[in-house]
């Protein structure tokens, strides 16, 4: 019996949910032309949240979950017995518009299993975006998952319509990629990223529009035995080689119809959380991968405390830091002080000498900062040297629920 469109939506949303990239950010500000619909705001909007704490910003679906690839970590691999469905181009266009008109979403995130050939699949995805933009004057956000094996001209075309293009690296190590995703090839993934980067940079210089919100990627952690340090090193390379906007980390979680080569247990979500924190330190706090890794043990981040605190505890000789005189780079390294708080501190101290309570109004992380910060009326004296400092600052151990 033919599937109803609601059944298809359920299957294809279920199949797409393992992709973590949901953001609708980074687009140029724009509004629809007369007769069209939609706008983008720059920072993006999360229209809802599901009980997994993830935001619902875009209609995130696959065009189809039929797939010729056989990647072990993927619920849609050809050898899985999952239910299959396929949307037509028109169905996706209609669904996007109807959801958008009700203010459920910011736009569309479209990915797909590979059917017939990578080119055929990429073309269908490109057509969805083209129809939305051309025939319906849709100015909302569009994120297309590019298929690295597709011919370059299709990616060139997709970039005309999409705000963001992305290719998933999926696994940080080449060996894992070979083992778990036999049809994927690191070379073609990097080639596609390189091509996209080149076009994005050129377009910006020439003031044309080509994937104006840039490109992103996703890595699954916990499906193989790669260390956090190796994951972060890959990220750092990706940021510098391809100018990526975001690297998303997705803790491997059990999937229905799992492949026997995979671990049965989920990777701790905490690990994903720590990787995001470390990623932040790489991009906005001037940390190197080496420094972050040194905060943990054997290339793995400390799961109990955040990576900045972990680094500070192992580099106590660099503290305490005087809030009234230290330069920005040093303040950014103080546990508990975020980059916004640091900027406020710097603005304030041009006019006044900061006391402990003053800093307390600028940052919410004063408990962590206490041992590392000097203010006009506070000096941690021997606190930095205390052996039990870590215990004092780590959250008290508690019984973790099964699903935390």
């Amino acid at each position, binding site marked *: 019996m033919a599937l109803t469109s609601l059944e298809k939506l359920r299957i294809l949303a279920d199949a797409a949910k393992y992709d973590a990239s949901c953001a609708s950010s980074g687009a140029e500000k724009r509004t629809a032309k007369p007769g069209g619909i939609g706008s983008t705001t720059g920072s993006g909007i999360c229209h809802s949240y599901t009980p997994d704490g993830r935001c619902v910003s875009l209609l995130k679906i696959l065009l189809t979950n039929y797939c*010729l690839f056989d990647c072990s970590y993927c619920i849609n691999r050809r050898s899985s017995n999952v239910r299959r469905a396929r949307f037509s181009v028109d169905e996706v266009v209609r669904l996007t518009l109807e959801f958008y008109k009700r203010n459920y979403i910011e736009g569309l995130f479209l990915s797909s299993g590979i059917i017939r050939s990578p080119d055929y699949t990429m073309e269908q995805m490109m057509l969805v975006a083209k129809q939305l933009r051309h025939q319906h004057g849709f100015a909302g956000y569009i994120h297309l998952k590019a298929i690295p094996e597709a011919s370059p001209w299709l990616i060139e075309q997709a970039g005309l319509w999409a705000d963001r293009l992305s290719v998933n690296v999926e696994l940080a190590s080449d060996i894992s990629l070979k083992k778990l995703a036999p049809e994927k090839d690191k070379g073609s993934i990097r080639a596609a990223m390189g091509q996209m980067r080149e076009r994005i940079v050129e377009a910006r210089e020439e003031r044309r529009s080509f994937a104006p919100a840039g490109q992103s990627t996703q890595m699954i952690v916990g499906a193989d035995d790669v260390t956090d340090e190796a994951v972060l090193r890959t990220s750092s390379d990706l940021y510098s080689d391809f100018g990526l906007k975001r690297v998303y980390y997705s803790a491997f979680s059990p999937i229905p119809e799992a492949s026997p080569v995979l671990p049965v247990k989920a990777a701790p979500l905490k690990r994903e959380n720590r990787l995001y924190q470390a990623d932040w330190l790489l991009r906005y706090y001037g940390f190197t991968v080496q420094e972050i890794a040194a905060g943990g043990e054997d290339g793995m981040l400390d799961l109990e405390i955040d990576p900045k605190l972990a680094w500070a505890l192992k580099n106590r000789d660099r503290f305490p830091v005087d809030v009234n005189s230290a330069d920005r780079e040093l303040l950014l390294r103080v546990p508990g002080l975020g980059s916004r708080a640091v900027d406020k501190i710097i603005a304030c101290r041009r006019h006044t000498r900061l006391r402990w309570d003053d800093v307390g109004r600028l940052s919410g992380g004063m408990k962590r900062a206490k041992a590392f910060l000097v203010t006009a009326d506070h000096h941690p004296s021997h606190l930095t040297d205390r052996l039990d400092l870590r215990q004092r600052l780590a959250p008290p151990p508690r019984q973790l629920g099964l699903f935390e």
Partner: protein
Amino acid sequence: MKRIELCDGADAEGFRQAVRFLVAELIPPAEVVWSSSNSPALFGEAVAAGAPPVALPKAVAELVGLVVCHRDPERYALLYNLIWRVLQGERSLLEIASDPLVHRLHIMAKAIRRDIHKMHAFVRFRRVEASDGEWFVAWFEPDHLIVERVSSFFIDRFRSMRWSILTPVGSLRWDGDQLTTGPAAVKGDAATNDDMEESWLGYYESTFNPARVNPSMMRAEMPTRYWHNLPEAQLIPGLLQAAPQRVKDMTEREAMAAVKRNPDKAVAAMTDQEPKTLEQLNQLIAASEPMVPGGTHAVLGEGPDRADIAFVGEQPGDQEDLQGRPFVGPAGELLNRMMDEAGIDRRAVYLTNAVKHFKFQQRGKRRLHVGPTAGEVKHYRWWLEKELSFVHPRLVVALGATAVLALTGKALPVTKMRGPAVLGEHPGFITVHPAYLLRLPDAEAKEAALALFLQDLRAIKALAQRTRE
């Protein structure tokens, strides 16, 4: 003690007038009592009208605009306090975020910004069939007095729709052209169902991953007070309850062998996707979107497969675009004449362009040629390379700088590089574009350039013959 009474709601205008009056009269904050009501008593209007405007730093004015939307009755007093101190010499007061007053006002402004953001996010329209077509109606309960502040967002986004947003503190109505603000509404005024809601709930349910339950994160971003107006929120308790069992089922179930056969043939054929003939490639190009502004349809290459010589120009011009053939405009005619003279048969060579679409700017009735940018040329490279691989000429002639860029990926000076050259993978020859010859204003220079071009064409002919032997 001075009593100031403002309108209920976010009375930005009343506050501005009061501030002008108070500042002109030099009344310090400690001597002012603020209140608001439905029908405020006038406070010395005659005096206020004469009071000069108060010049405030931009950041202060912005903060005032936000904070007047706050529900806290103390907001006007706090703001006047800020304004007073700024005017009394603390011009940079806002930069001192650690100051208790500034800190408090920042927190209030943050609450407003958050409320606005949440309203952008959580308004849910329901479609209503009215006698004159469809309307979209939403019921929303903001925390603060932000209804008018959010109107521009919804107009920008849903300009071509007709919609109303009803709230307990006022309503917005957009008829596709005009915004009307209206009085407070009640929930019963809004629609109760919508034909897409079932799909939305189905989507919400399916996009949730039971293996990653994190309800506190959800509540932090989507506080429960919003839930009763979010249709999808009714699913949350059920999803949370069923999650542990779903995960247990997933992890306990043994991996099953694939039921379907391995589709060997399809997998083998999957990577065999490139166009196989020039004709297939041309179909692809013709169906694709122009990658330059202007461009209507693609002008494809022309000439026999396996031609000895392929000429690559820049892009089709006005005439080429109209006729759908390359080199048929003035430059094409010149090229024909010169080829004749050099003894090259146009029908025996392949003619194409680096960029397949006419990039132009409309000026009145005229379409003015605009040269493609380097990035645009690169967009078309893949097609050109593929095209030449099918034609497989003995010699590729680059006519002008754009063709050189397309063939080599590098911007090289034509005059310096003129003559035989390796163009990418092809044995080639670089010369000028005939359009350049047409543009030369000086008759003498033109004649010399034409002679040089003819000499190039003769050399090209000889070179192609030699590679054949």
